């Protein structure tokens, strides 16, 4: 394809994507150096917003919580996703139906799923989970404060994130499993490898690329998680489960002060964090494309 043709074909998309992304991004960058109210021009105040953001313990807590959530939820998604994919891979005619059902939590609106999720735990609304667990354990389980206590709240947040990201991880890994060579597997079986050994030494190494890609997407999507935290972590300001996105939202949009400059500075810091995390995979893509 000629260069001119390339640019003619990509032009509309580039204008949409870059025009309407770069202008807001530039605005965010500028606001991060300003003291500003919505709808008014800001006044330049240098690095004051950054100093305020970095000096506030709330930012450190939000980063820790967000990174922790990302690591734990991704790990669960990968492990459960692998087991599920291996099971679904054995299915015959039931496979389309099972895949369809498993996809539901991934394709429904996150905020709506999280609202439905919160009703399972909230004792004001029936608390079916407490009820069932107490029925099984004979009441030993009690009634944890799912929304106000730090760790029970973390538990339901992780459970929710795994619930809606698991189908994605499972499907990707399933697609990877389709590409594992049958001959190698048979050879391993003839050599006396147990099923566990076949998974550990044949299948997992050969889908390393897919697993890497799943981790990349999981990282990008869990860091940005916002929708489901609105219903699931209403007390996050006091119980320490405030994520970076919720923090930005509160500072810049929903709290009375509506400090747009400070919110923008935190956004810029988040972008830097994401770029650092993305760097290895970006390098891989460039390397692959050059080859």
């Amino acid at each position: 394809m000629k260069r001119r043709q390339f640019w003619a074909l990509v032009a509309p998309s580039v204008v949409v994507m870059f025009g309407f992304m770069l202008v807001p991004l530039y605005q965010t960058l500028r606001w991060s150096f300003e003291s500003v109210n919505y709808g008014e021009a800001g006044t330049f105040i240098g690095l004051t917003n950054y100093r305020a953001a970095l000096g506030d313990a709330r930012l450190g807590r939000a980063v820790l919580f967000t990174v922790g959530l990302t690591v734990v939820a991704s790990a669960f998604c990968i492990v459960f996703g692998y087991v599920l994919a291996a099971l679904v891979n054995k299915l015959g005619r039931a496979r389309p139906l099972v895949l369809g059902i498993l996809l539901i939590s991934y394709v429904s609106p996150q905020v709506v799923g999280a609202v439905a999720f919160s009703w399972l735990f909230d004792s004001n609304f029936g608390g079916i989970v407490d009820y069932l667990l107490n029925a099984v354990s004979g009441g030993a389980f009690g009634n944890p404060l799912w929304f106000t206590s730090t760790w029970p709240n973390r538990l339901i947040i992780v459970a929710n994130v795994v619930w809606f990201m698991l189908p994605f991880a499972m499907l990707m890994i399933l697609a990877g499993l389709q590409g594992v060579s049958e001959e190698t597997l048979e050879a391993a079986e003839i050599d006396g490898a147990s099923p566990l050994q076949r998974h550990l030494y044949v299948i997992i190494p050969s889908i390393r690329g897919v697993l890497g890609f799943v981790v990349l997407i999981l990282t990008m999507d869990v860091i940005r998680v916002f929708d489901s935290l609105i219903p699931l972590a209403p007390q996050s300001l006091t119980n320490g489960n405030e994520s970076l996105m919720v923090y930005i939202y509160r500072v810049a949009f929903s709290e009375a002060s509506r400090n747009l400059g400070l919110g923008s500075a935190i956004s810029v810091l988040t972008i830097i964090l994401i770029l650092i995390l993305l760097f290895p995979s970006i390098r891989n893509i460039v390397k692959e494309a050059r080859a």
Partner: protein
Amino acid sequence: MTLDIPAASTRSSQAPVDLAPEAGRGRPASRRSRRAGVVTAVVLTIVCLLMVFPFLWAALSSIKPTDVAFANPPVFRFAPTFQPYVDLWQTTDFYLYLVNTLVVAVISTIVALIVGLPCAYALSRYTGISSVVLLVLALVFRALPRFAVVLPMYDISQSLGIYDTTYALAGALIVINQPFTIWLLRNFFAEIPPELDEAAMVDGCTRFGVLRRIMIPLMGPGILTAGIFVFLFAFQEYLTAAVLTDTSSKTVPVFIATQLGQNLPLLQQASAATVLLTLPVIGIALIAQKYLVAGLASGAVKG
């Protein structure tokens, strides 16, 4: 010649026995492999139930009489009622929110595809460095924190006087989902051999002609896949809709989230709204499962 959707479901046609384990194929089903099949079936049934349980519970709450809808301990024996659905329809603007959600999703899907298709085609065929740079930038854009883009959009839409309109929200979603759209479509285009383009051009077709007459017809399933994804993304969106809309173009996810802090009848209406919003999504998941799987799988193969 059709575009081969690398569906994970292709194998389903080969296995003759329902839930038959792979190892049992081609030889008499041994007792061990049959037992493995039963275990697989039981585990997957439990997982499937757990995955839909939040929605089942919401559905159950929505048809209980209001006084026991969220009673603690839960009530399991009740006379079903559809009153919350009637109230939802009659006393709130749910209908308006539903129309808004659909309008935003349809507009943003159509425009995103029209804008994204030529770009994705060019990205799959052009081997220059600008192609790689664009793809990497798209990936970075996809990973950006939404607020870095959405809050300025809020400010801009207010100063332009298009705040709280469905087309402003649709426009924002087209922009935000464009990186995903072009990545997905580009991966589908890359599966069509470039020799096909060359043959058509030897026969006198222009580049644009190749795209219009050959690629787009061939890409049918790929375009459908991308369309389903972009539609679902728009349908699901909460953050952007919460910031860019107020009353007149509010969408259903925003409505459901704002009902949360309300009292009992309204809360039960929210569970009815949850059911009404989730039912079509479940329909899409079951009917278009093949395309959703193909869309996700294509990313994996190329990533």
